[in-house]
């Protein structure tokens, strides 16, 4: 039997309210400062380094994103940990906060479905993250233009735009994860700690652990099998996926993200950049993986929320 009415009723109202809450919150102030500081630090580091390097690089602009200079990490590695932190910061008390303020049952007794509340909050978080990331992206591009004095080419801008989109999808994964835990745990502090713990595990420990697990569990002496299995395992972490997409997009010479067989190198011109469409093909499974992960995590949170009792 079908439910009456639309699950989207009230979605827009919830989204706008959450969005204005996010934008006016103290968390947002912190995020804005982080964004500005990260942009300045990354661009400063990259530009001092790029100036020393050759100007013959056809993808000079993309170096802004990827060049690191001791002791500062590159812009992309900054993003690799800044984005999850921002997403967790916005999502960790989405549902349990309503519980603890005792507003949940009052809101749910209005003529809306739970779908609208959860999805509205997710969209508001994602829009807030997108705004921050777009601003950050524009800042970097703008500063780059000013300080390098070289306009970017069309292919470079295309790559930079896709990179922005993928970063937003990556933010969506962590936001969905944080919201899932905000449904499961009644205490916001527990939810935040568990999400951050899982983030540390997935981005720092898991990539190092994957080869060790492969060594222990896969009874094979074939070097290729071991490497491929370890890589498959490591790709369970969204951080690994994101890192690989960034590699393919921002280093146009990347031809594959896995091991290369000699037969595949026949006829290849080493060191020649791929066109954007080919780079996209190389990273396509990873991009789909990131989007699928955020959908899966959101669905998990949705199911948990539907089954939850509203009484405090």
């Amino acid at each position, binding site marked *: 039997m079908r439910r009456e009415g639309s699950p989207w009723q009230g979605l827009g109202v919830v989204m706008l309210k959450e969005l204005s809450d996010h934008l006016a919150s103290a968390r947002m102030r912190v995020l804005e400062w982080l964004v500005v500081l990260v942009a300045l630090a990354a661009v400063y580091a990259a530009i001092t380094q790029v100036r020393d390097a050759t100007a013959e690089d056809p993808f000079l602009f993309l170096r802004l994103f990827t060049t690191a200079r001791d002791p500062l990490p590159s812009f992309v590695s900054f993003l690799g940990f800044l984005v999850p932190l921002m997403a967790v910061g916005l999502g960790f008390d989405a549902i349990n906060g309503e519980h603890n303020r005792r507003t949940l049952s009052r809101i749910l007794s209005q*003529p809306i479905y739970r779908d609208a509340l959860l999805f509205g909050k997710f969209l508001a978080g994602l829009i807030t993250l997108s705004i921050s990331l777009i601003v950050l992206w524009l800042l970097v591009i703008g500063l780059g233009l000013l300080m390098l004095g070289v306009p970017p080419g069309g292919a470079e801008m295309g790559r930079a735009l896709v990179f922005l989109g993928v970063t937003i999808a990556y933010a969506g994964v962590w936001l969905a994860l944080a919201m899932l835990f905000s449904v499961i745990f009644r205490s916001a502090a527990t939810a935040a700690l568990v999400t951050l713990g899982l983030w540390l595990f997935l981005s720092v420990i898991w990539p190092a652990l994957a080869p060790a697990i492969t060594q222990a569990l896969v009874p094979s002496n074939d070097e290729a099998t071991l490497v491929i299995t370890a890589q498959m395992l490591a790709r369970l972490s969204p951080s690994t996926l994101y890192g690989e997409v960034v590699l393919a997009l921002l280093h146009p010479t990347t031809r594959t993200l896995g091991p290369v067989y000699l037969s595949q190198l026949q006829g290849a011109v080493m060191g020649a950049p791929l066109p954007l469409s080919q780079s996209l093909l190389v990273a396509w499974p990873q991009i789909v993986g990131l989007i699928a992960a955020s959908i899966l995590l959101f669905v998990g949170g949705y199911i948990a929320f539907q089954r939850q009792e509203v009484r405090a």
Partner: protein
Amino acid sequence: MSAAVIEARGLTKRYGDTTAVDGIDFTVGAGEIFGLLGPNGAGKTTTILMLLGLSDITSGEARVLGHNPMREPLSVKRLVGYLPDTVGFYDTMTAAENLHYTARLMGIAKRIRDDRIASALARVGLTEVAEKRVGTFSRGMRQRLGLAEIIMKDARIAILDEPTNGLDPQASLELLDLIRALKAHGISILLSSHLLDRVQSVCDRVALFNAGRIVLMGTVGELGRHVLGGGFAVEVEAESGDGLVKRLSALPGVRGIETPAPGRFRMTCDRDLRAEAAAAVVAAGGRLRELKLDEPSLEVIYTRYFQQAAERRQGEARHAA
């Protein structure tokens, strides 16, 4: 009683092995204040959540204004206003902003929204603090803001869960007055409470809950007659007077008499014997100081009912032995 606005038949809720609500039946008539009374954990809130479609019904059936809360939750929630136990609001938003948000969720048209909010706040006496943050509100003010939300919604049924819980006597009297005013506007009200005496005064009919079942239902008077054996209790306080006890107990219709304190007499009678008792005191040469008829209190009814139930069980146990 006019047409029923809420009907529950065999309503049951189980969590795993435990049964929170066990096959209850009741109806709430239009324009009536119906009280769900009983100790904490007796299943009152669970019943309310099932009626609102916020909790799944394990078995049995519920109808709210002809709608099934499981299948048509939006229709039910459009017509019913709910004030949860210790209602919460967004503390950083003002009272008016909080109502604005729910008004938009209710789908109230933009041009009438401000008027509705203002008049609802005026009805509960919160006009002056409409632009204050809810974080500064006392508990009583929050409860009143919750009622304002129901008024704004133009609900046909108001479901109030423990509305006077945790309020000081003054605040809870004010709230009960507001509840009576809601009734005067033609809204049917279902309220739950564990404070028997306080809600007795507003309820037309009550259902007494115990361990997930309704053990008694009816008007307070009916329950009193049923449980206490249909007695009227007349209390007499008089000075001096010879053999008052004898004279009073000799009155026709008196079943028993107690003397809780010197000069105080408590008679259990078949009917209201105040006039006869007064005449008897005067005839005995005593000075009458106080004379009153005790309404049966829910507290007494409830305690007595469980005493009787325990006695019946013991009797059955003896019988079986």
